[in-house]
């Protein structure tokens, strides 16, 4: 399956998840859909990496999980940002901005 999607650079998955959850609590599937949508279909998260990442973030206390029901009345596990996660998001966003700016600068002057 040759995907039209971009490869996610190392470490950006956590940032994307945190960013998506900053808009409100979501279940896993919705997170992946949302990322796809926000990136205009350029990015797509495989569930093979999504769920391990979610569980990792939960363990680190950056996000919290609760069981809820969807609009179709199905049980789903909803994730939301914790206070610590919100702070972490700011830190990572800043770092990402610095990184991309630096990379862009290097590419631009090359």
């Amino acid at each position: 399956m040759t995907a039209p999607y971009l490869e996610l650079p190392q470490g950006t998955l956590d940032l994307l998840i945190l960013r998506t959850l900053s808009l409100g609590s979501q279940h896993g599937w919705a997170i992946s859909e949302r990322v796809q949508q926000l990136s205009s279909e350029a990015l797509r998260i495989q569930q093979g990496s999504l769920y391990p990442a979610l569980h990792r973030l939960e363990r680190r206390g950056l996000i919290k999980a609760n069981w809820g029901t969807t609009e179709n009345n199905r049980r789903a596990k909803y994730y939301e940002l914790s206070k610590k996660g919100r702070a972490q998001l700011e830190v990572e966003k800043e770092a990402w901005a610095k990184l991309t700016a630096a990379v862009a600068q290097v590419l631009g002057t090359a």
Partner: protein
Amino acid sequence: MLNGLFRDLSFRLRALFRPKAVESELDDELRFHFDQEVEKHMRAGLTREEATRTTRLEFGGLSQVKEECRESRGISIPESIGRDINFAFRQLRRTPGFSITVLLTLALGIGANSAIFTLVNAVLQKNLPVVDPATLIRLGEANDCCVGSGVRDSVSYFSTDAYLQFKKNVPEFEELAAMQAGFAYRPVIARRERTQDPARSVMGEFVSGNYFRTFGLQPEVGRLFADADDTAGAPATAVMSYETWQHHFSGDSSIVGSTFVINTKPVTIIGIAPRNFFGDRLISTPPDYYLPIETMPLLANVPYVHNPSQNWLYIIGRVKRGTEIGPLQQKISMLLRDELVAAGRLSPKSDKERLARIQVALTPGGAGIQSMQKQYGDQLHLLMWIASLVLLIACANIANLLLVRGIGRSAELSVRSALGARRGRIIRQLLTESMLLAGLGGIAGLLVAWAGARLLLALAFPASQNVPIHATPAPAVVGFATGLSLSTGILFGLAPAWIASKLQPADALRTGSRTAVPGASLLQRGLVVFQVALSLVLLIGAGLFLKSLSNLENTDLKLNASNRYIVHINAQAAGYVQTQLDTLYHTIEDRFHSLPGMAKVGIASYTPMEDNNNGWGIQAHIHPESSAIASVIRANGDYFDSVGTHVVRGRGINAQDGPNKPRVAVVNQTFVNKMFRPGEDPIGQHFGFPGSDTNTDWEIVGVVEDTVYQSVRMKDHLMFFIPTMQRPAGTKQPIEKDDGLFAGAIVLATDRPMDNMQHLAQTTLAGINPNLTVVRFQTFNDQITASFGQERLLSRLTMLFGALALLLATIGLYGVTAYSVVRRSPEIGIRMALGADRSTIISMVLRGATIQTALGLLIGIPVAFLCVRFVKSQLYEIARVDLNGMTICIVVLALAAFVAAIIPALRAASINPVSALKMD
């Protein structure tokens, strides 16, 4: 921070204690995602089937995702190990044959080794439980025993005078202690005063006053000896061993200070020796009482304590730190030479060269007097080698079984890796299984080791209750054996996992079980060949020891043991003096003869097949140019008949040969052959101590057959027998000093078996004198059997190990053959479908097994021939591998191999071609 820690902990705890909940939540979560994805595709216009299929393809390995989630939650370590173990248990239970075989192999391999090594450790490497054993030095190196006047070049036991000289003149020793060399051969008779306790024959060791101080020991109760206790005229005192205090007097504290009657004399118990202290040497009969040397003349009535020409003491000392051993050895040797000259034992002129050769070797004394170490050392080392071979075979077997199993599972492993299990995960699972097996095997091995060590001890020392050797396996030993089996388990459990995990799952699944994994089977076959070779060596060895034992046991001892009983006595300890002995012996003869059923009552210094010997240097009057050493026994008139010795010429000793009658002797045939030329009539000849004035002392009146005395191995041995109370003519020794007159044993021959003979002997002796007790009672048969004990033990153990090796090799061969049949069953199916008949299939399967067995035998035979050299000294009248024995071993091994191979071969032949082909 603390908060985070708490959350992390609760997370992990939940995973640990509620793994099901966590798991099902993960399932629900992923299921939800899956369903959402399916619905999304359906919204895009796919049918449910198509949508489900697409989603499944996108999803990839579900279990892999789950596994990664578990890992990223950080809960995987304890939980998944528990899961692995659980799974491993189920796997092992699914193949009980395999699991039990591996466990048994491990248990026997580890157990047998640990048991032997425990014994080796306990006997060969044990230091005395004393303070700083490293600074203890023994004077001498050999186990010369027990009382003697001869002087060897290397002196190992000493006279009291020599000891006192060393003590006075060698300040390099902080303490120098002396102890009785032969206490084990001279029991004392002890009884607590003013109690109903019967007098018992027990071990008493005479030691110097500084004995306990030299070893740095503290009393358990009371006090230990001081120098004052060991002076002439001091009140008789004794220290009791802790074991005796506990076992015979239940640790009664009133024992200390109480009076005991030892050899009929009152002795005060001043204290209890420390717990665990078993004396100065490892021996199956450790001392019950320690007694000061200076009280020995009074208590034991022996003349040698203050005789400067009688050696009877071992010496152990504690050197001061920084003492050079070399110069010290020179100094002590010099002192001994001076002492030998001063005592008149050697002349500085005529014995000049001998004197220069005489020396005292200083040896490490931390382990005490190493008599048992010398006695059992060779055999223990041999057993150690054999046990190591068995462990090697066991390891080869486990390796083989694990390989067989691991490779057999390659299909399963491929499926699991296709389902998303990562290589590391699969390896971990297989590792868990082998570790679990090895761990369980290790535990079983410990049990076998514990029981085995006990069994070995019981076999090695059948008659003694308080051998100071404990059967608890040494931790180092168990650690080594367990480590070895664990590493075997890990290594050979991992090898197939490694091979399997390197395969592309798709390849493995495609080829299925129709082809074998290359390489492994060569290794397996090699292991089987190795096992067969080793077991052949062990079997041949076992055969040799069996033959050796039967050579020993089938030796014609020229004795008659039926309805014969040996009663050991010690009249000296019972308070008799030499002048009372003639009367005592007649009383013994009369009293025992009056018992119903009594046929013969023999009285002798010692009896055949007991560990005792007394030699005299002698010379025949007509051949004064040569002399020889001959064993001497004082015996009464009934003695020859009582042990079944036949008089072949002249007469035996009779009741008329009293103390004041002409001196007569009966000699054995070897004596005649060695002392006289062919054609010379021995009857009427005279012999005696070398010298023209003494070599006429004894007149030969009869010749008896050669019979076995101390040991079957002692052959062509000169012996002569003289009447109980006759003494050499010119002896200057007063009768009161002649210990040789004390008879050691009564031999009773009855006309029918008598079960109550021990009791009868006790009451009869007590009727003569209450202090005259039975020192040791055995039937003659038991005494003869006991003298083969060590050989029998060795033979049994080698048989046991040989059988074990055979069993393991058979299992190994079976495993490999059965496995190859399973692997080749589709091929066999095709062959049968193409017309091959049962016998073709059977011979095809047998061919492999035959080749491996034959190779093993080819390697094993020359190795066995080589190994015989190393055990020859342990064998009796066997110089090389005999062909009959070897043929039997080969046949036995071949039969076992045939059985191991025919079972899978028959199974192969009964394969139904159709189902075999359908199997995949």
